[in-house]
Structures are given as structure tokens and as C-alpha cells.
């Protein structure tokens, strides 16, 4: 998936500062750096393209509106992904009020994607939706953004120990649904 942005955290801070100083191009650069990965995190959290796009827009809208409150001593990517996960969780909550999660996986495959990739996406997507949202968030950040335990801990605001516990529990369930049941 996307390159982990952690290595360019200084750049993020500088871009945020420049945007606050009125340089619009710096804001564009921040969007370019993150909007795809934010969308993909939301997509894997929600299993729905439209919802993921809505979350992406909301996250950036909120991020820019609140950018002045961003504390540069923290990593920008932690901040933006935290908003992404939280907004995704909110969307899930709203969705629970109106529709069952069963069959809610809705990710149409573009023509350019191979059948193998389509199958993998479908299987993984459905299995992810069977996980508890908190566990799902850890799996998504680990496997789709390649974050370390510590980075996930930062993003979710939970101890590393909790990250590992959720991840290992989630993998047990995924093993059952994706490997054991299939065998």
C-alpha cells in the first residue's frame, strides 16, 4: 500500500505551518500526501466506497478547519489517521442505526484489477467487517498502512499492549474465517 509517511514527519509539520501562514499550496501538498491512504484506511474500515469517500472528505475538512490546534510536537500522520479511524467508527455507529452490517461490504471492482485481487479484496473485506471495529482498526493500520505497534498506539491513543492484544485476537478470528473455514 502507500508508503508510510512517518519518515517525512518534519515535512508534514512544515507544510502545516506554511498552510497556516496562508500558503494554499502547502495544504494541497498535505492532501496529496495523505488523501489516498486516508481513503484506503476508511475503505477497509467501512467496506463501502461511498462511505469511505465521505469520511475522507470529512477528515480533511475537519483537519484543515482545526489545523491551528494541531500541536506540532505530535506527528501529523498520527493526528490525521486518528481522525480517520474515529470518523470511520462514527460512520459505523450511524450505519448500525439504519441497516444491518450483514452484506454491507460494497466495493465494486474496477476493470483494471485482476480477478485474483478482486477475490482477495472481497474475502478480506468481508472478514474484516466481522471483526469488532476496534480490532479492525488495528488490523487495518498494521496491514494496510504498515504501521508499527507504537505508531498504531499513537494513532489510536491506546497502550502498545492493547494494540498487540487486539491484533493477536483479530488474527485468530481472521485465521478462522479466511484460512481454517476455507480449508
Amino acid at each position: 500500500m502507500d508508503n508510510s509517511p512517518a519518515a517525512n514527519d518534519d515535512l508534514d509539520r512544515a507544510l502545516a505551518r506554511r498552510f497556516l501562514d496562508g500558503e494554499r499550496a502547502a495544504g494541497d501538498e498535505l492532501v496529496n500526501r495523505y488523501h489516498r491512504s486516508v481513503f484506503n484506511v476508511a475503505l477497509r474500515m467501512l467496506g463501502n466506497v461511498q462511505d469511505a469517500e465521505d469520511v475522507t472528505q470529512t477528515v480533511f475538512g475537519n483537519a484543515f478547519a482545526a489545523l491551528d490546534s494541531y500541536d506540532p510536537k505530535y506527528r501529523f500522520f498520527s493526528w490525521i489517521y486518528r481522525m480517520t479511524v474515529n470518523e470511520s467508527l462514527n460512520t459505523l455507529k450511524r450505519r448500525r442505526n439504519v441497516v444491518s452490517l450483514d452484506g454491507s461490504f460494497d466495493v465494486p471492482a474496477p476493470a483494471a484489477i485482476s480477478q485474483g485481487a478482486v477475490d482477495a479484496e472481497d474475502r478480506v473485506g468481508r472478514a474484516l467487517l466481522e471483526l469488532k471495529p476496534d480490532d479492525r482498526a488495528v488490523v487495518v493500520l498494521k496491514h494496510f498502512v504498515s504501521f508499527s505497534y507504537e505508531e498504531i498506539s499513537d494513532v489510536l491513543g491506546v497502550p502498545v499492549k492493547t494494540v498487540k492484544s487486539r491484533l493477536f485476537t483479530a488474527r485468530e478470528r481472521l485465521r478462522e474465517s479466511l484460512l481454517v473455514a476455507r480449508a
Partner: protein
Amino acid sequence: MNMLTEYQLELIHREIDGENTPEASAEVRDLVASQLEAMTLMTNLQSLDALFREVPYREPSPDVRDAISKAMSPVANAQGTTQTITGWAAQQWNGVSNFMGELMSTKKVLLGATTAVAVIAIIGYALVGYPPGTFDAGTVGGGDGLGGVTKAERFKGAKQTEADVLLSSAEVQTLLQDDKVLKLIRTGAFKEVMNNDAFHDIMNNEAFHDLLSNEVFHDLLSSNAFHDLASNEVFHDLLSSNAFHDLASNVANQELLSNEAYNQLANNAAYNQLANNAAFQQILNNDAFQQIMGNDVFQQIFANDMFQQLFSNESFHELASNEAFQQIMANDAAQQLFSNNSFQAIAQNEAASQLFLNEANRAY
């Protein structure tokens, strides 16, 4: 049945995640070579990892990028103007309105030192006891999904339900991601305010919302003189004095600064103490204060009925004297929170406020 210890399980997961030291990786290799369960787990986790890697990276619709870009413009334009005045400082002037209006329109003869005492007392009253709102040129969240910065708008239409407020408010979630805000929300004082009937009443007050959308008021807030006075430390020291608090309470209990009320005020012990206060004397000589006193915009505001309505509101007085409210008003994070449209909507309703507190406690 799993025969692996917790340590061994973690070791294998860490290996998959690339979190092991070279020594730990060697330990994993030995473990996998010697125990069937370890090998099975390792193989399964590798298969899972491989399956995840097969999932394609998706591109969002170009419309998403465009929408973000469009939403970004007003934010960029608003930067620098929204933050030049803290929400807190902005509110300080509200409570001054009624009494100052009366003074400026009918008692110009009193624009001497004695009047100035009353003016400062009233300003001070506003400082400690006025519910803040959306005075800034821009406010986080425009009410649409993008939450862009737009001008603060009046509350209109039907109240939201509790579920609507909490579940539709992306802004609220953004606020809850701010450590300072979370810390504030979890204080006893904040919870007390959120459960205060007077607070909910003032959040439902039409005059209050009229004030927030008053253009002239915004003009005043953007004046240099206002900035200077609001950021003056001596001014703040004066307002935090006991004498001031006593006097402010006295002033607050007057519906209008009639001749009789004014005389009572002039004979008030706290008033006299304040009049001899060195800080007060400094404020009287403060350029910014004098500019504001003679400012046309300032006088226009005071002539507005909404100020009188608001200042004569019982809930306003009750809230102003609430210690918990005064305590949280000293918190910067409170300004950010109170100037948020979604929060204001929540704050109109006691049950929604409680749900908001629950959400805050659940966050993180």
C-alpha cells in the same frame, strides 16, 4: 489445543510484524523448527499477511480530491483572522452592552472617571460570566459534511435529537481528538456546567444568537483597540480582584443603570475600593480603553436591543455567578469548544449534553 505460551505466541506475531530483534528472530526460527504448533501458526500468519498484500490499493474518485480542495479555500482565507482574537476575549465585551448603551446614550455627562469605573466593572462582569460563542470570523464546521470554516450562523429550525447531535457531528469527534478539549471535558467543573439548566437556557436564548451574528459586533472585535485591551494583563488583574467581583455582582443585579442604581453603585464599598485601585487607574489611562470608549461601532452595539434582552436574562445572571462556569471560562480549550456550532447545538439540551459527556469519556 494451543500448546504455545503467551510469550511464544507474541514472539511469532512480532516476527510477522517485523518487530523482533535479530536475537528474537533467531529464537522464532528455533521455535518453528522444533514445535509443530509454532510452525502452523507461523505459516497461517504468513498466509494471512500474503492475502492482505493481494488486496489492491484503491484510488478515491477524483471528485473527492476536488471537494477537499474546494473546502480548503475558505479555511486558508480565514486563517489569521479567526485566531487573532481568542473566543474568550471576544466575549468579554458582550455584557458591557446594556449598561454602556444606557450610559453612552443618556448619560454622556458621566463620561468621567466615575463612569469609567462602572464601565470597567461591567466589562469585568462580562469577563467572568458571559457564555462564549461564535464570534470569530470563521467557525470550525459549516454544518455540511466537509466541516469547512464558514461564518457563524444563527441557530434556526427544530432542535436536533440527541442521536442526531452525537451521531452526525464529525466536528464533535474532531474536538474529542484534541487532548486539551478532552481534558477539559473530563473535569468536574465542566460536567457541572453541562448539567446546569441556566447554561442550557442561555444556549437557547435568541438574543444570544442574535448577538453572535451581529456584524457590528464582529467589527468591534476586529478592532486593534479591542485586541489591545483584551490582551492587557493589568486589565485582567483588575478584573480578577475581589473588589471587582463584588462590584460586578452589584452591577449585575441592576436591570438598568438608572440614576438610582448608579447612585447605589457609587456608594458601594467595592466600587470605592476599586476606584482607588492602581490597576484601575492604569486602565483609565490605557489608550486602547479610551479609543474604545469613543468608538462609534462600540456605541452602535450598545444601542442594540438584543444586549438589553440578554443582560436582563435571569439565566445569564445565574450562569455568570456559577463558580464552575467561571473556572472553565479561564480555560483556552473551553473557547475552542464553545465556539463550535455542533457543541452549541448539543449544549442546548441536557440529555444531549450528558450523551456528549459520555462520548468524551469513551473517547480514547
